[in-house]
């Protein structure tokens, strides 16, 4: 018996990993290699890109797009925070009070996904339009004056403002926050809460000491599943924003598709990815989720 077959016999799980590994290799590692390779070249589409190992591509790309990087982080973080504030109570109510309507309520949460992403975002363009009912109501209530002052909106409009972009991102990624939160809340044994109440914790304290810590894995998964795609998103900024709300995703998109500046687009993509990776590692350390799972 060869070594390999023996390994497979003693650990029947390995062959099951094979399809995933092949997928990862072809569609992740190989493209990653080409991306990295491209990010160090110079040239243009007509004459070709020559490999010169120009690491300065990174410095240039980051320097030129610092503003968009920072904006992306702020928008993605705001959208994640907003989604969390909406999702936690929502998931909590479905998990603890949903009763036999649980599945129906969960379906409602993902119902928007039945519509195409682009269509959904375009719908928001209509909702937030200058002469739409939302904008005029907000305007007459003086809300826009306040948000203008805070810099969330400008010129008494909703569309083409940071608020519109963040709202769009929040809306589009909300289920990615709600579902993991629901799963972790649903798993909590209700008797643990009774035990906390029995041991002299009132309801807010029981929540803080038991429910919240036990839902940490869901908070961790939900925030990452929202934040990571949100930071690279460009559709919302493209459809609901203006030149003042350009995110890093928009820059990468235009460099790749409009200017055909592949090396600097690749450098930006790589930087974004590395940044997210570092962030995830730090975040995991802070939340200490290894302990919980």
């Amino acid at each position, binding site marked *: 018996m060869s070594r390999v077959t023996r390994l497979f016999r003693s650990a029947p799980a390995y062959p099951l990993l094979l399809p995933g590994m092949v997928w990862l290799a072809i569609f992740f590692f190989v493209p990653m290699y080409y991306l990295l390779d491209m990010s160090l070249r110079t040239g243009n589409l007509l004459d070709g890109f020559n490999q010169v190992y120009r690491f300065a591509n990174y410095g240039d790309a980051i320097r030129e797009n610092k503003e968009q990087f920072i904006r992306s982080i702020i928008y993605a973080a705001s959208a994640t925070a907003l989604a969390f504030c909406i999702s936690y109570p929502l998931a909590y109510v479905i998990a603890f009070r949903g009763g036999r309507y649980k599945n129906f309520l969960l379906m409602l949460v993902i119902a928007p996904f039945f519509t195409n992403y682009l269509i959904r975002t375009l719908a928001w363009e209509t909702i937030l339009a200058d002469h739409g009912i939302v904008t005029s109501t907000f305007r007459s209530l003086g809300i826009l004056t306040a948000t203008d002052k805070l810099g969330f909106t400008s010129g008494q409009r909703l569309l083409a403002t940071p608020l519109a972009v963040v709202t769009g991102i929040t809306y589009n990624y909300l289920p990615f926050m709600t579902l993991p939160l629901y799963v972790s809340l649903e798993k909590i044994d209700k008797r643990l809460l*009774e035990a906390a109440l*029995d*041991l*002299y*914790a009132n309801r807010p304290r029981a929540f803080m*000491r038991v429910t919240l810590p036990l839902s940490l894995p869901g908070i961790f998964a939900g925030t990452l599943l929202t934040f990571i795609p949100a930071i690279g998103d460009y559709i919302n900024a493209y459809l609901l924003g203006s030149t003042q709300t350009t995110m890093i995703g928009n820059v990468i998109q235009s460099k790749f598709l409009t200017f055909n500046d592949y090396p600097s687009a690749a450098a930006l993509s790589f930087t974004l990815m590395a940044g997210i990776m570092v962030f995830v590692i730090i975040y995991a350390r802070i939340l200490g989720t290894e302990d919980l799972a």
Partner: protein
Amino acid sequence: MEQPDVRLERVTKQFGDVKAVDDLSLSFDRGGFVALLGPSGCGKTTTLRMIGGFEEPTAGTVYLGEQDVTGLPPYKREVNTVFQNYALFPHMTIFDNVAFGIRQRGGGSKHQIAQQVGEMLELVQLAGFERRKPTQLSGGQAQRVALARALINKPRVLLLDEPLGALDLKLRKQMQIELKRIQTEVNITFIHVTHDQEEAMTMADRIAVMNQGQVEQIGPPGELYEQPRTAFVAGFLGVSNMVWATVTGPGTVQLHEGTVARVPQESLEGGHKELRIGVRPEKMRIVANGSGDGAGDANRLDGTVKDVSYIGVSTQYIIETAAGDELTVFAQNVGRSAERAAPGQKVGVLWDPEHTFVITDTREVPTLEEQL
């Protein structure tokens, strides 16, 4: 006389159309160990949860000592619970689990808390387990932690909801003795819910047998066993032989197939005419047909052996009487096995009048399904 620790006054709890607890009045004395015993759905757990504050009664009042606590949330009641399946906080260490209650009440310095937790873990024989997580414990250890976590708060009353249900038989026996020891040591009122009659008898000094939301009978285990007042209690606690009889005079009844039996006089004071008399199987003895007539003032009933099963310490006989009643008799295996009666043999069954109990209610004995 001292005030009872817990008092339920005409408490009713309704879930939809179902009355889980029906006009129940019950009081628990300070420092006692009371078991609420009954089949599932008899309302024992609901009763416990109303004392703990997890359910509000539909009607009636719950008192802790002098205080009316009806409507108070659990965290405002001087009561702690050992939950079924323990409900230990999985994200906390054993130390933090046990310290939870005193911390929530803002009790003491770090040093004081550590000392109290240490004492408690020692009481339940788990010293040195402070840093472990609940998932690293066996069932018996988790059970002890749950106990320590409740007792550290020095509650007025400790509620135990089927605390040993998840343990295997051997561990259960061990924990029964352990619980009793701890109860004596801490001298706190224990109210213990169980469907296991043996568990209730081993630990409790008073048992309340519940059925359909009401208490059938409450008393020390011996009294309930020797003098059950209802067919339900007689059938739920151990095995009972019960036959219908008619009262014929002071202390005498006539069984339906004609035999006259004597019973304790005071047991007939109710003035009932038709009733059932009962005897526990181990209180009966078997004699060969035609002999043993001179066995003093014992009652005698004749019948045929239907079945004999040897179960080690004793032999179980099923005797069919002339009236068609089946009697179960346990005979201690003190003699040689050759002396056992064989199926088909005609025998006499003897028992002392004072071992006879009288059941005046007319309900059927609970079936096995009802007991589970």
